[in-house]
């Protein structure tokens, strides 16, 4: 059981910054995210895109914003449960929340802050008959353990970075890698496109374009696929089919937690402290809605800050506290680190 002060669901910019604001109040945080890396949409959808409306950052790449946030919060030693989806929430006898993931990891805290953005990222699935029958029986949407494909025949479908990256990676592991895409053109890092071109030229991977997988066949386990390539239909035997058509967010299990939902977002008590209809559960960032809501990273930062102040009051109702300025008080990390402004030089001039 992971025990902390605030369980933050969602490790996007808002969730990450909440760790900092909580840290200033000496509250510890643990983040849960279904993606294997922190950063949420900034890491998953647009790491290389610039953002222009972060105060004091005239231009910053989404990926760099995440890196900076990770650096900023590191003194407060946040815990992470990554690659797992927060599934259920319940209250124990002492009034703490227990959040359990789809993998069974349990987390306990008096406060839960949902910073889930647009929700859990789920793979976009192609429309194929029997697709679900073969899920985990030859059809995978994510590559968790590349060793699984050692000396196997693998077919990857897709035209973006993940299709290219995994084609390159598995070329050295699998017995045979075939990449199928609807067009000749791929949208990915130039370097990746060139690498796949070279692998193809060296006969290390097979490329079928413009083509589309139209059927899946097999008994209990996938045995072959049918591909339509410029009007020609052919059957290819394979051990695995990995469609990589990107991820799409779904509100997911939190939709069933008894929270008030409006327009696919969690309703909060206006802009007081972003608490939901369940006391002790907050919703911050893109996942919430209230009158005047704007889905902006900078608004998420503000919401995270107010949430932490309210969370402190809930945890320590009788403890006096006052807002502190980091310029004055500095930062005392849980790792023993200390940052503070240099003392002024006071010296006489004679």
């Amino acid at each position, binding site marked *: 059981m992971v025990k902390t002060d605030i369980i933050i669901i969602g490790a996007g910019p808002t969730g990450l910054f909440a760790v900092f604001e909580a840290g200033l109040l000496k509250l510890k945080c643990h983040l849960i995210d279904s993606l294997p890396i922190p950063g949420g949409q900034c890491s998953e*959808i*647009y790491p290389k*895109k610039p953002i222009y409306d972060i105060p004091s950052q005239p231009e910053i790449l989404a990926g760099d914003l995440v890196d900076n946030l990770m650096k900023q919060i590191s003194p407060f030693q946040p815990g992470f449960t990554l690659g797992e989806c927060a599934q259920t929430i319940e209250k124990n006898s002492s009034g703490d929340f227990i959040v359990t993931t789809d993998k069974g990891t349990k987390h306990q805290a008096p406060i839960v802050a949902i910073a889930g953005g*647009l929700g859990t990222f789920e793979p*976009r699935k*192609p*429309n194929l008959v029997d697709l679900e029958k073969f899920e985990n029986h030859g059809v995978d949407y994510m590559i968790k353990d590349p060793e699984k494909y050692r000396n196997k025949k693998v077919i990857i479908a*897709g*035209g*973006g970075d993940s299709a290219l990256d995994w084609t390159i990676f598995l070329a050295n592991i699998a017995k045979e890698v075939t990449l199928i*895409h*609807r*067009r000749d*053109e*791929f*949208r990915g890092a130039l370097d990746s496109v060139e690498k796949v071109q070279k692998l193809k030229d060296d006969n290390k991977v097979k490329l079928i374009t413009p083509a589309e997988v139209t059927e899946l066949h097999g008994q209990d386990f996938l045995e072959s696929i049918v591909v339509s390539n410029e009007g020609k239909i052919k059957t290819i035997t394979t051990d695995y089919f990995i469609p990589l*058509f*990107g991820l*799409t*967010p779904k509100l997911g299990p939190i939709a069933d937690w008894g929270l008030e939902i409006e327009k696919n977002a969690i309703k909060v008590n206006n802009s007081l402290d972003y608490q939901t209809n369940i006391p002790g559960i907050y919703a911050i960032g893109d996942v919430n809605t209230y009158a005047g809501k704007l889905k902006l990273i900078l608004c998420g930062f503000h919401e995270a800050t107010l949430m932490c102040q309210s969370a402190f009051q809930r945890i320590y109702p009788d403890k006096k506290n006052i807002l502190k300025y980091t310029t004055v008080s500095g930062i005392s990390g849980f790792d023993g680190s200390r940052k503070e402004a240099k003392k002024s030089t006071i010296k006489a001039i004679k």
Partner: protein
Amino acid sequence: MNQDVTITVIDREGKSHELIAPTDMAMNLMEVCKAYELPVEGTCGGMAMCASCQCYLVSDHDLPEKSDDEEAMLSEAFHVKENSRLGCQIHMSKALEGLTVELAPE
């Protein structure tokens, strides 16, 4: 001079919505739909990276050519037809007066 255009969006239930869209606010079709609270997600915010604003061109307007980004996204999206476009890549202009589009399935 009036800077607005009137466009028609057919939702996924087949219902037509007449929308009045400004042409001087740098808006695209996805944003216009969202402004009218039509069920268009616009997940990626308009970067041609999610196809949640895919629509089918119904009227015979000559739209600007698809960019490489739009082509690439449509080549990976589902329910794509000859007349598929990404709403986020269609910028409001006077030439769009009378445009009719239909929202593609989610």
